[in-house]
């Protein structure tokens, strides 16, 4: 177990390292050199001054050296200064992380609160009308563009009906719970509708997989009720894929909420990364992207662990084989 964990963590760290180098390189290719941005403040700067400024900030050094320097500082806890917020990057990341967490916890709970009973209900009678209708709805959910869904909700509930606020967090103070909860309604609805379809299809598949197995027939033959078979036997055995998708989702929701956050002006990690890239706030964009990658990798790691931990049939030896699974 320890060896497996260690191997996976090392792999994740390697990916994170490569990703940080890649993003560092790419950010250097974005429009708006840091020196150019300074020049806009003073148009009288000569070309020798530009060279001096570049030397002063180490921008005349090769890319790899600059990246290594950034890495050394980042590991020491110094992620640099955010240009657009005029504050250390770490101080900017904190509140954004908090906002994203609030949104994700509520959306996550609601998505599963909806997907689990629905998939249990339709898996009882595959091929029935309710199965077809829920499946169709799930397909629609998968195919709908998130930003369009968000716009429609805004048009309906904010512009036309004037019922719900369309932007902002509604936070009243530093306390997590002290907020106007109505502000969560539209972004959470968007995230739930956009994600619930994929979850229903996945859970339904997992449940039907288990329902086809022998022990279910045994349980039925012994007179277990339908509900007992579904919850006590099928769901219990389908927990492995459920946990897997929960963990995998951590990452995709974390950065996948980017669009939703942007439409509803929700100052979370996704919007932060987007604004940082668009506003040439290089330090912030870099830190945000690396953090988003780290969370995604962590989700994958948890999914792998949950898999091994929950299903004793899956030997560690089999999982550590380089089979490209996850």
């Amino acid at each position, binding site marked *: 177990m320890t060896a497996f964990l260690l191997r996976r963590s090392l792999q994740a760290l390697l990916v994170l390292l490569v990703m940080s180098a890649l993003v560092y390189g790419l950010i250097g290719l974005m429009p708006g050199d840091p020196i150019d941005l300074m020049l806009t403040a003073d148009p009288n700067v000569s070309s020798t001054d530009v060279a001096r400024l570049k030397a002063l900030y180490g921008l005349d050094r090769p890319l790899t050296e600059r990246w290594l320097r950034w890495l050394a500082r980042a590991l020491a806890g110094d992620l640099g200064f955010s240009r657009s917020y005029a504050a250390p990057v770490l101080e900017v990341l904190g509140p954004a992380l908090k906002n994203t967490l609030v949104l994700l916890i509520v959306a996550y709970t609601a998505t599963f609160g909806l997907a689990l009973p629905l998939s249990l209900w339709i898996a009882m009678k595959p091929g029935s009308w309710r199965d077809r209708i829920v499946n169709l709805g799930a397909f*629609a959910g998968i195919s709908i*563009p998130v930003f369009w869904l968000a716009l429609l909700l805004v048009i309906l509930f904010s512009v036309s009906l004037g019922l719900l606020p369309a932007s902002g967090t509604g936070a009243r103070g530093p306390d997590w719970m002290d907020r106007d909860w109505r502000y969560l309604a539209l972004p959470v609805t968007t995230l739930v509708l956009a*994600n619930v379809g994929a979850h229903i299809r996945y859970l339904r*598949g*997992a449940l039907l997989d288990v329902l086809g197995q022998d022990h279910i027939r045994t349980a039925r033959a012994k007179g277990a009720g339908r509900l007992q078979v579904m919850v006590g036997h099928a769901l219990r055995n389908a927990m492995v894929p459920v946990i897997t998708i929960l963990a995998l989702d951590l990452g995709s929701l974390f950065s996948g909420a980017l669009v939703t956050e942007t439409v509803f002006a929700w100052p979370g990690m996704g919007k932060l990364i987007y604004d940082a890239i668009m506003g040439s706030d290089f330090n912030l964009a870099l830190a945000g*992207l690396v953090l988003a*990658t780290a969370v995604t990798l962590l989700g994958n790691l948890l999914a792998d662990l949950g898999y091994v931990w929950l299903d004793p049939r899956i030997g560690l030896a089999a999982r550590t084989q*380089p089979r490209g699974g996850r």
Partner: protein
Amino acid sequence: MAGASPPVSGYTGPGPVTGLLGGALLLALALLTLAAPLIESLLSGAYGIDADTVDLFARNAGPSAAHWLGTDELGRDLLLRLLYAGRISLLVGVAGACLASVLGTLIGIGAGYAGGALDALLMRLTDAMIALPLLPLLIVLAAVDLEKVGLPPGLVRSDAASLYRIILIVGLFGWTTVARLVRATTLQVRSHEYVRAAHALGVSPLRIALVHILPNVLSPLIIATTLSVGNMIMLESVLSYLGLGIQPPIPSWGNMLGSAQETMQTRPALALYPGLLIFVTVLAVNFLGDTLNARLDPRKAP
């Protein structure tokens, strides 16, 4: 949704009706968008309008005989813009999916056939690609200044640059599913007697890949490519909506939605149509792909 595909055994699969419906919808959309110049010439003959004519005296107009769906915030005909935008969105979807499939096939066959260290390296790369936060990374790539990469300014500043760039970006990130599929099939086929016999007879690896392996991966490849057309259209529309994809004056459903957001208080219809078209297209692709998946894949055939 990035991630593992759902377990499929025990799944009875969709009926042929949904697949036919999806295919018919796609065909209709493709024909309509391809006929855009024809419709435009008809409309310009009758009413003297075309897709790009700005008419500031007819801004945000409702439907009329000349403008069947009304006009946008600059007085351009909405229907014609939607059709031309559809060409771009469908082109990006199909071209991106094809690019991704070619890349995925090359990587998958390479990994599966070579085995050993190359296989391990390519599959770790695939794992890593899947673990990356896709959307933020695409945004960074879409924001890169192409002149700094060393491309000629003439090309970078041309209207079509944003189109080529977006196809390249979505294609570069969509190959992972195909690569895994193709590798798995390659591993399977490689151990077959006839392939080993061909190898023993001294047939070159390239010929083995083309003649023996490729035909075997074709049907999963077609399914994966079909399904990824939907993903590509979705990614293009998100990036264009965020202002990083297809750049105006070239219309795409995504960038039309982006500009419709500003007038959504006064003219919600502008935000309705482009999104509806993306939705219908992606839904049709998914219907078709899901049915193909259930019918074509020999491993799932009853």
